[in-house]
């Protein structure tokens, strides 16, 4: 079966992606640089944008910013709200402990 030009290109990209996914593991171990093909078949290179060190630096910088601080505060509120929900599991009614299960 002959594949169309676009299908050939997609097939080649899928093969490349599999190879690069394998390579990415090794490269990421050896250094902070990597090359991979994303699930959407767009090529990601070892630019600063995809450098984990650079990502970490940008993340920490953002956390220190006013926007980051505001976001952290919102996050704390959400954590408290979840804690309150989970605590409902401990709201045992002591008067019910002696009520028999009779049905």
């Amino acid at each position, binding site marked *: 079966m002959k594949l169309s030009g676009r299908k050939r290109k997609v097939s080649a990209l899928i093969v490349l992606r599999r190879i690069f996914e394998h390579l*990415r*593991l090794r490269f*990421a*171990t050896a250094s*902070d640089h*990597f090359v991979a093909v*994303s699930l959407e078949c767009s090529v*990601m290179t070892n630019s600063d944008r*995809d450098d*984990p*060190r650079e*990502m*970490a*630096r*940008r*993340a*920490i910088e*953002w*956390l220190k910013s006013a926007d*980051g*601080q505001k*976001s*952290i505060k919102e*996050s704390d509120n*959400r*954590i408290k*709200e*979840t*804690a309150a*929900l*989970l*605590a*409902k*599991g*401990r*709201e*045992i*009614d002591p*008067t*019910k*402990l*002696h*009520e*028999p*299960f*009779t*049905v």
Partner: protein
Amino acid sequence: MSTPAFEVFPYSLDCLVKLISEGSHHKPEDEVRLKSHTLYFDHYLTKLSVKALLVERDYIDRDFLEDFAAYYVRCFPPYRKTCTRIHAFRRDLSRDAVKAFLSGDDTKLKLEEIKSAYLGFIVIKPLPQTVIGRTCLTTYSDRSTRHFPATRDFEANLFGIKLKVVNTLPFQEQDSVVAACATSALWTLFQATAREFQHQLLTPIEITRAATHLLPTESRVIPNQGLSTHMMAHAIKSVNLEPFLIRVAEGKVLHAAIYSYVHARIPLILGIDLVEQNTGTNYDRMGKHALAIVGYSLGGVPTPLSLSGLVLRSSRIDKIYVHDDQIGPFARMELDGKRVEVQIPGQPVQQYDSLSTSWKPTHGSGDVRAIPDILLVPLYHKVRLPWEWALQRVTEFNEVLVQLSKIVPDLKLLGLEWDVYLTTVNEVRDDLRNAANIEAAARYSAVTWSMPRFIWRATAVRNDAPLIDLLFDATDIDTAHGLLQVVFHDALVRDLIKNIAAVGSIDALPFKRTVKNILRWVKENL
């Protein structure tokens, strides 16, 4: 003429009714036919494609024998001490072929044919009303969304033939004399925990005695009218397990708590208020009932636990499977989100989350629903840290991933699904050894890392593949960080976290203590 040791019948509802009636103490067939268990078993056995029933007469059942010795032997009517056991097979059988096999001639029937066709058994007690004794039936083979972690393989011996009931957990009906619903539910629990945690296996009468031993009651204990939560907790303590009580009136708490423990092969007691439809959403209370939860279905749509957006795999639970002594084994209850309006004594009329049941209404045509109240978890004493302790830590770490997703959206750290449950070191090691995306050195390190027997495992799942595993010590004290390991299944995410941990002082980062501990661990060990 003496009764034959066994008989074989092709399966039909009429045949089942006849056998239950014969095995009981003169219970008429008409009454047997109307019994909810009979209808449930007919549906269940049909779904299992049962073709033949083999009836074993004069079967001695240990549980009934203890009950008989404690109560029935001193009754004026002459109750028998032996039971009838009905074995179910998914292939046609003939009495001649089985007889020939038992006589040493396997030309008509091979041992493997008998073993592979075996689906389980039902013991019929020689009592007037409550006749369903120890019952082990395998679960349905369709496992697309159904999960029965609390089941095990149980053995049955038929005239020396070693048969196996796969994926089951024993069930029996309360006899309302030495055992009430809570006793039957506890009995089912202990069938699983005795194997899991190696404790003594109690019979129904022993459970009732253990539950009431230290609790002075205003009335007699046997005939038993029902156990309270307090009494059930005592019964659990009597086998050296720790009862852990959770209130589950809140639906999300119910989902998360069930998943956390049943995944660890521990069946749970669910205490409910049964309510019967009066008009519309208005229901009348029938009373309190106890069940054993043995499985769940993950066929629902995942929903966030709260505003935090934390999505738990447990939120997919749309049905639970219970041993309901008034219905049958593996009875389905749907968590369909329907709310009912009812007055529970001591409370004003209000709306409650409810579950569907297989109960038939006592009057009219309305349905009978269950309002969940409590979960009682039988835990090994070393499982000290509870489910919400683990979930709180996951919430805090997930919030950091939410923050990071704003800076690195390509990593898709937003909307991860967290699979949080109690497990054991051996299961974690076995799973990590077979994980697809961990490098050999990291895998070796994770598998050989020193860990305690009980672990809270939280796996972040992205696009159906594990991304990060957080392993916490379930045996620690709750003021400790409890972190054992962090296992990354994605090298890029690992390197991002490593680099965050490597930048300056971790204490200076605006994160919760749990997250700082995770970063410290990553910094020191990866």
